[in-house]
C-alpha cells in the first residue's frame, strides 16, 4: 500500500513538472487545448449527422447511442489523461532516457504514466461528460437505484480497464523494443527490423484490437441492463455488475505484464 502511495506521489510530482513545462509555451498550450476540444467535439457531430438521416442504428436510437458513446469516451478520456503517454515509452527506451527513470527512487510505472502529462486531454473528458449527461437526460429509462449506481461504476471501471490496457501495451513495447534494440546494437544496420516499427504495435494494434475486447463486455453489457435491452451473447443478468471485477482482473493482468516487461528490459547499447 505504501508503494501505491509512493507511486501516486511520484506521479503527482512529475505530472506537475510537465504541466509547468507546457505552460512555458503559453500560446501553444491554449491553441492545443482549444483544438483538442474542437476535434473531440466534431467526433460526436459525425454521429449527429448520421442520425439526421436515420432514426436508429441497429435498433438503438440517438440518446441510447449517445449513452454508449458518452460512457466509453469519458472512461477512455480519464485513462488517456492519467496514462495516455505510455506510448512515449518506446521512444524513451530507444533514446536511452528510460534508464534515467530507473535510477530514481520512485516506481517506474508512475513515472512513465506521468510522462508528457497533458492538461489538454481534459478536452475528451469534457466532451464525453457533456454527451453522457445529455444522454442520461434524454433516454427513456425507468431509473432504479441499481441503474443509477451503475452509471458511475461503469465510468470508473471502464477507465480502470483502459488504464490496464495502456499498461499492458507499455509492457509490450518493452518486449518489442527488446528485440529491435538489441539487434540494432549488434548489427548497426538494423534496417530489417524497421519492418516492425514499435509504434505499429504500440498504438494501432493495442488501441485498435485490445480496447475492443474489454469494452464490448464492460460497456455494452451494463449499458444494455440500464436501457432494458437484451444482452449480447445471452449473458446472465448479473453480468451487468461485473465491470468492477473485470477492471480488477485487467488491472492484475496489466500489472503482471508490466512486471514481466520491466524484468525483460535490457537497455540500449551505450
Amino acid at each position: 500500500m505504501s508503494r501505491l502511495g509512493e507511486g501516486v506521489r511520484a506521479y503527482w510530482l512529475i505530472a506537475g513538472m510537465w504541466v509547468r513545462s507546457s505552460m512555458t509555451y503559453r500560446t501553444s498550450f491554449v491553441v492545443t487545448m482549444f483544438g483538442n476540444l474542437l476535434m473531440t467535439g466534431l467526433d460526436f457531430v459525425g454521429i449527429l449527422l448520421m442520425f439526421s438521416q436515420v432514426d436508429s442504428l441497429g435498433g438503438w436510437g440517438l440518446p441510447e447511442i449517445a449513452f454508449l458513446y458518452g460512457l466509453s469516451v469519458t472512461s477512455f478520456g480519464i485513462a488517456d489523461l492519467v496514462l495516455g503517454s505510455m506510448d512515449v515509452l518506446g521512444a524513451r527506451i530507444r533514446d536511452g532516457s528510460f534508464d534515467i527513470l530507473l535510477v530514481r527512487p520512485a516506481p517506474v510505472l508512475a513515472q512513465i504514466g506521468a510522462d508528457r502529462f497533458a492538461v489538454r486531454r481534459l478536452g475528451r473528458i469534457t466532451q464525453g461528460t457533456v454527451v453522457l449527461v445529455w444522454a442520461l437526460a434524454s433516454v427513456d429509462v425507468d431509473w432504479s437505484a441499481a441503474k443509477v449506481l451503475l452509471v458511475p461504476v461503469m465510468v470508473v471501471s471502464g477507465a480502470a480497464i483502459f488504464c490496464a490496457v495502456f499498461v499492458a501495451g507499455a509492457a509490450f513495447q518493452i518486449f518489442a523494443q527488446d528485440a529491435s534494440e538489441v539487434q540494432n546494437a549488434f548489427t548497426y544496420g538494423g534496417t530489417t527490423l524497421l519492418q516492425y516499427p514499435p509504434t505499429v504495435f504500440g498504438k494501432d494494434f493495442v488501441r485498435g484490437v485490445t480496447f475492443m475486447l474489454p469494452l464490448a463486455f464492460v460497456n455494452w453489457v451494463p449499458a444494455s441492463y440500464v436501457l432494458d435491452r437484451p444482452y449480447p451473447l445471452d449473458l446472465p443478468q448479473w453480468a451487468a455488475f461485473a465491470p468492477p471485477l473485470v477492471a480488477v482482473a485487467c488491472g492484475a493482468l496489466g500489472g503482471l505484464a508490466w512486471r514481466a516487461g520491466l524484468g525483460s528490459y535490457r537497455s540500449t547499447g551505450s
Partner: protein
Amino acid sequence: MDQVVDVAVDAFIELDRVEKVFDVRKKTGFLRRERRQVRAVDSISFTVARGEMVGYIGPNGAGKSTTIKMLTGILTPSGGRLRVAGIDPSRERTKLAHRIGVVFGQRTTLWWDLPLIDSYKLMHRMYRIPDARYRENLDRCVELLELADLLDVPVRQLSLGQRMRGDIAAALLHDPEVLYLDEPTIGLDVISKAKVRGFLRELNTERGTTVLLTTHDLQDIEQLCSRVMVIDHGRLMYDGPLTGLHEVGESERTLVVDLERELPPIEAAPARVVKVEGPRQWLAFPASESAAPLVARVAAEYPLVDLSVREPDIEAVIAKMYAGEAEKAVS
C-alpha cells in the same frame, strides 16, 4: 549490528563473478531467426572501497555501460553476486536509488523546458531531502560548479558543458555515497572538462564520495583516478594504477623531433625511430620511462628545432593488451 566485524566493511561495491548474457536474435531469412548468446559481461569480480575513485575504461561495446547498469539496478545480472552498500541493486532498485547518484553523459535528468532550479526542486521532493540538507548541498554545488547564473535559465538554453555541470549537481543533492558517471566529459570543451574534473576531485577528497567513472578520455583517468580498471570483451583485463597499465600494455610514448635538416635515423636506444619524414622523425619509447633523459640526449647530439611528446592512445594500449592476452591463451 555493530558487534559483527565484517571483513568486507570497506568493500562498498562488490562484484563476484558477475555475468550478463544477452540473447541476440538475428534475422537470417523470412521468418527465420538465428539465436546467439552474447556475453556482454563475462565473470567479472572486483571490489571498490568506500572513498575510492576508480576509472573504468575499455573500447566501445566492451561492457562498461552494462556493468554500470547492473550496479545501478537498471539491468539484472545473469549470474554471479553483486552488492552495492550491501544492497542487491536489481532487487531493491528504489532503496538503492537513495544512496547512489548517476550521471549519464549523453542523457539528462533535467527538465528541458524548465529553469534548472525546477529540476533541483523536484529532486528535493522526490528524494525527500531534508530542507536544510538540500539548501546546503545546493549551495555547495552552485558555488563549486558555477551554476549561480544558470539556475533560472531553461535547461534547453544551456550549453553542453553547463548542462553536464547541472546534471552532476542534480545527482548529488541527496548526498549519495557513490557517484557513477558514464562518460562525464564526452563532448565537452577543455575548460568545461577542467571544471568537471576539479569538482569531482574535490567531491572525492573533501566529501569522501566514492566515484566510479567510465571514460574514453585518458586524461580523465590521469587527473582523477588512482585506480583504473580495463574491460574488454566483457572481461576485466587490468585492475591497478594507471602507470601499471602502461607497463602491462607495453605501451609506448612517441617523441616527435624536428631537426634542422634531413638526417639518418636518430640512434638513442631504448628509443627507436618508427618513422622518418624529411627533417621530422618519430621515436617510440616505453611509456613507463621518463622522456627527460631521451630529450636531453637527442638535444645534445642532434641539431634540434622543435620537439613534442605524444601520449599513448588508450585504445591502442588496450588493443595491445588484448592481443597479448590472446597470445598467452594460444601458447
